[in-house]
């Protein structure tokens, strides 16, 4: 009789996804009502309900259409509310959708890992790490843009790698579509694909083709953003291609950990508001208050640069990103796993990323095969750029929540290599022992 193995490394991903789904569902079942941080999450729900009632997307201010957020999350939530209502059923349906998107992210990480390392075991390890990572289990039950954006960035990575590998129009267009969706959810991820240019050159995509596809991408981005930019212009008389709330975050950032500048956030907001009154704008949209905060933030940054340029540079590009890289965003504790336990687990994986990169570098030098080295390098560079961009506004842990995706994706390789070496050593020792036994018995 043929001995059939039910679970193999090739289909183990489905077990991982089911485990991830069950963990997320368990949190929804036991803590559903607690999974609100009363911040952007409730803002999106309120905005979506207002959108359904009035047809206008609002956020915080009820007398103005908002320019403080991208439309993606509002439209998605409103779509679910339109079908299921915004009562208990609607909230549950939305939570299930977020959980399913989170599970899709697990699968996306698995696919990305397969593209980079071409090894099912490594891909399974990466997927398991994402599936059981408590902050992501927590986030998948909270209505923040992170869950949606993580899924987008993971599949954007996959199709970027796919495009570099196959150079087909199909993979390019899918990648472009996911990119457009991504910037409608989290605009700061917009810079991410640029960092895959070295891989594109390495894979010998003809330069002419890259230029043509680049132009198509620019046209597509222009076309996709035009209606939104026009809408923002009609509302504020100012050109806002994406969202117009960065000024506030930037001002907040200048009050965090900078010893060279005086003033609390509340005092600075008051000062910015006074300036808005002095300027007497024709339009009273709150966007101008946020814009003024941005101007004030820029002035403070200039002052900071003048006082100590080196400190500005190191704080913005090294200290703050490093601080956020070494922290986790875990808004609501789930499954009785504490913040410190999770941070410990995360930091160990961060070390594993370093080990992975050393192994990959050694393999690159030995085999002269740059695929693994460049693919993982591009992913790390892209995530680092997004992190620096985010923390240049304000060093908030939430702005580094996406880091774990990259960390687990890369650290899984070191984990695999260590396990592989241990198993090899174990087998080798076992073989040696058996050998000595058989030698003894033959004697």
């Amino acid at each position, binding site marked *: 009789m043929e001995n059939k193995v039910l679970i193999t490394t090739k289909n183990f991903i489905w077990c991982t996804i089911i485990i991830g789904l069950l963990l997320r569902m368990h949190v929804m079942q036991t803590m559903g*009502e*607690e999974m*609100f941080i*009363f911040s952007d999450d*409730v803002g999106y*729900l*309120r905005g979506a*309900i*207002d959108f359904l*009632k*009035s*047809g*206008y997307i*609002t956020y915080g201010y*009820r*007398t*103005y*259409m908002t320019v403080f957020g991208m439309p993606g999350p509002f439209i998605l939530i409103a779509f679910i509310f339109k079908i299921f*209502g*915004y*009562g*208990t059923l*609607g909230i549950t349906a939305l939570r299930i959708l977020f959980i399913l998107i989170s599970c899709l992210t697990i699968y996306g990480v698995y696919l990305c890992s397969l593209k980079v390392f071409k090894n099912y075991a490594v891909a399974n390890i990466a997927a398991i790490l994402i599936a059981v990572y408590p902050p992501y289990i927590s986030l998948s039950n909270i209505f923040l843009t992170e869950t949606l954006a993580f899924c987008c960035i993971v599949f954007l990575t996959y199709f970027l790698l796919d495009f570099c590998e196959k150079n087909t*129009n*199909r993979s*390019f*267009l899918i990648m*472009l579509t996911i990119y457009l969706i991504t910037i409608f959810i989290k605009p700061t991820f917009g810079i991410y694909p640029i960092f895959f240019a070295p891989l594109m050159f390495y894979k010998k995509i003809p330069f002419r083709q890259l230029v*043509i*596809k680049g132009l*198509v991408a620019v*046209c*597509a981005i222009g*076309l*996709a953003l*035009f*209606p*939104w930019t*026009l*809408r923002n212009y*009609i*509302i504020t008389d100012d050109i806002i291609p994406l969202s117009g709330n960065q000024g506030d975050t930037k001002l907040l950032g200048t009050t965090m950990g900078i010893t060279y500048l005086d003033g609390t956030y509340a005092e600075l907001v008051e000062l910015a508001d006074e300036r808005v009154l002095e300027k007497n704008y024709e*339009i009273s*949209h709150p966007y101008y208050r946020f814009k003024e905060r941005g101007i004030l933030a820029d002035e403070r940054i200039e002052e900071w640069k003048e006082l100590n340029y080196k400190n500005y540079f190191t704080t913005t590009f090294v200290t703050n990103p490093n601080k956020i890289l070494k922290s986790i965003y875990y808004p609501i504790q789930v499954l009785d796993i504490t913040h410190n336990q999770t941070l410990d687990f995360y930091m160990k994986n961060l070390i594993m990323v370093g080990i992975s990169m050393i192994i990959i570098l050694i393999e690159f030098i030995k085999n002269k095969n740059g695929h693994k080295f460049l693919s993982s390098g591009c992913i790390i560079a892209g995530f680092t750029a997004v992190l620096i961009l985010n923390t240049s506004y304000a060093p908030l842990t939430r702005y580094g929540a996406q880091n774990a995706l990259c960390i687990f994706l890369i650290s899984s390789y070191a984990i695999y290599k260590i396990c592989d070496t241990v198993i090899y050593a174990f087998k080798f020792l076992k073989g040696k022992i058996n050998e000595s036994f058989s030698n003894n018995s033959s004697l």
Partner: protein
Amino acid sequence: MKVNVNKLSKKILKNELCLYLLVLFFMTCISTVFVIFNTEKQIDVQSYYEDIRNHNFHIERGTEMEVKTLGNNAITFYAPSIEEQTYITNFDGNINFAPTENYREMATIPEGTQAIQIDIDIGGYNVDKDYKVFLYLQAFNEDEEVTKITKEIDLYSTILRSRPLSYKLDVSDECKYYRVTVGILPTKEIVDEPVEITISNLSIIFK
């Protein structure tokens, strides 16, 4: 130079990249038209909600609370401590009965209504530890209660923040009037914690 339009259009339609841009352009045109006709410098989303001042929200029974109306949208109730079951209700009269003549017009359920949907934001300060908060939506005949829903509101927050809630009550032809009540129930005998409840974004939809 002569351009063969048929040939060119066929060429464009065969090229995946051109076709993609063409579809995107078409979608952009539709979105632009939509944006032009649906974008306003100033809007009034509040008009899609009830003017909360018309609803006479007040303490009907229990500990007296300080009442503050925040424009036409929100109302807050504050007390240094609540030691007994306290009910905040819209409209006048006893919470177990239909409103009096003064509010009957406003409280009337239109004929043919099969369900009443209530959209409301409830927020609480300090109510997560020693208190339970309930929302009651009742329907009455000329005088007595016919049907109601009771929902316990989980306000897992020690800071005053609201979240949108929506509930539906099925009603029969017998139901003539409705009433919205929020109940605050202390879970311990002696409670000495300040309490604040905010009610906002009220919307009553008859279906």
